[in-house]
């Protein structure tokens, strides 16, 4: 691991803006992996599943169970997005294990994911409740409107920076461990900072998304 691994490397620029960075390249890799996985599992589906199909069925059963428990079984149409989000984020957080810069340690990635959640919350809230949803911003008193707006804007900011801060922290601490700690010490660091923090942060992000969307729709 080198100092260049901590920084975001830009391979290509567009109008002096970073266009293709190592975050983008790793995200492509993860997307290809997920794409290949879903094609491989669904190409020849059998009534008696093989190992891979059984594993993926377990994951899908799990996400259906979680969505049913958190959002209610009438909102199961959100399960595909939640599955895609959690699988992408899980793999992205765990790329630190192979000493690659995690895509989620880049604010652009986490803010994009939080922006999707933000749009989902307000689009679905408006779709379900129409004018009653707009009226909700003026409650309990009309002059509270600016405060309500600020608290809505705080949602994507805190969502994105929580994931970003945790992953940046794991990146920096792992860098320190690789440089200043005795050999084999980074293994413990990987177990806590990459595996544990990565899984917990994925779970929290997905749970918060589900909770906020279902709260806005009620």
């Amino acid at each position, binding site marked *: 691991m080198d100092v260049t691994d901590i920084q975001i490397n830009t391979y290509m620029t567009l109008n002096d803006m970073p266009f293709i960075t190592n975050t983008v390249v790793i995200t492509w890799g993860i997307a290809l992996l997920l794409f290949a996985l879903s094609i491989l599992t669904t190409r020849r589906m059998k009534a008696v599943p093989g190992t891979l199909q059984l594993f993926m069925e377990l994951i899908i059963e799990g996400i259906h169970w979680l969505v049913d428990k958190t959002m209610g079984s009438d909102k199961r149409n959100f399960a595909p997005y939640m599955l895609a989000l959690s699988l992408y984020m899980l793999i992205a957080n765990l790329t630190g294990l192979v000493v690659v810069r995690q895509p989620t340690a880049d604010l652009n990635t986490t803010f994009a994911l939080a922006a999707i959640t933000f749009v989902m919350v307000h689009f679905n809230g408006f779709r379900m409740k129409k004018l009653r949803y707009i009226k909700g911003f003026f409650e309990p008193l009309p002059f509270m409107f600016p405060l309500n707006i600020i608290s809505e804007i705080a949602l994507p900011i805190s969502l994105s920076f929580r994931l970003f801060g945790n992953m940046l922290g794991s990146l920096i601490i792992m860098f320190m461990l690789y440089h200043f700690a005795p050999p084999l010490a980074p293994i413990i660091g990987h177990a806590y900072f990459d595996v544990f923090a990565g899984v917990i942060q994925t779970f929290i992000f997905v749970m*918060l998304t589900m909770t906020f969307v279902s709260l806005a729709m009620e």
Partner: protein
Amino acid sequence: MYVLLQFILDSGFDWLAEQDPMALLLASSALAAGIAMIGRIGTGIGQGYAAGKGAEGAAVNPKSLRQTTFVMLLSQAVTETSGIFCLVIALLLLYANPLLGSAGTVIVLVASTLAVGLSMISAFGPGVGQGYAGGQAVEAVSYRPRFSGPILRIFLVGQAISQSKVVYALIIALILLYANPLI
């Protein structure tokens, strides 16, 4: 007290002005790295509370000891993430302070570096709050182990909301370090 203050004012801050600007910046980095770690007090209190509740749960319901221990360790580990932010800022200040190389008025740079450390003290509150939530979850699980699933979900989401406050402090600290509008 007044005499002491008068003495300090009379003797003045000439020694401060005589210092090399770079040395002042380095000194403020060292101070700020120490100050940032003060926020860990809260994490310690919170984790201790969760541990105490774990001991209580072991006495209340020894049969579900494994579940209680799991929830206790999980809550302590999630509480630890607030403290990790302090550690990250302290390490950044020690090894890669970006303000060291930047041009600007020395006093503003020194104040910004100190403010980075000061802002991370706010990890105190989320640390205590998250630990309290974790302790209550441990107690709830020890009383009703059958409902550990819903308890776990609710307390993880609540802890995440509580952690937002230290996330905002981290935003300010990172802005001061990397995109300081004042210099």
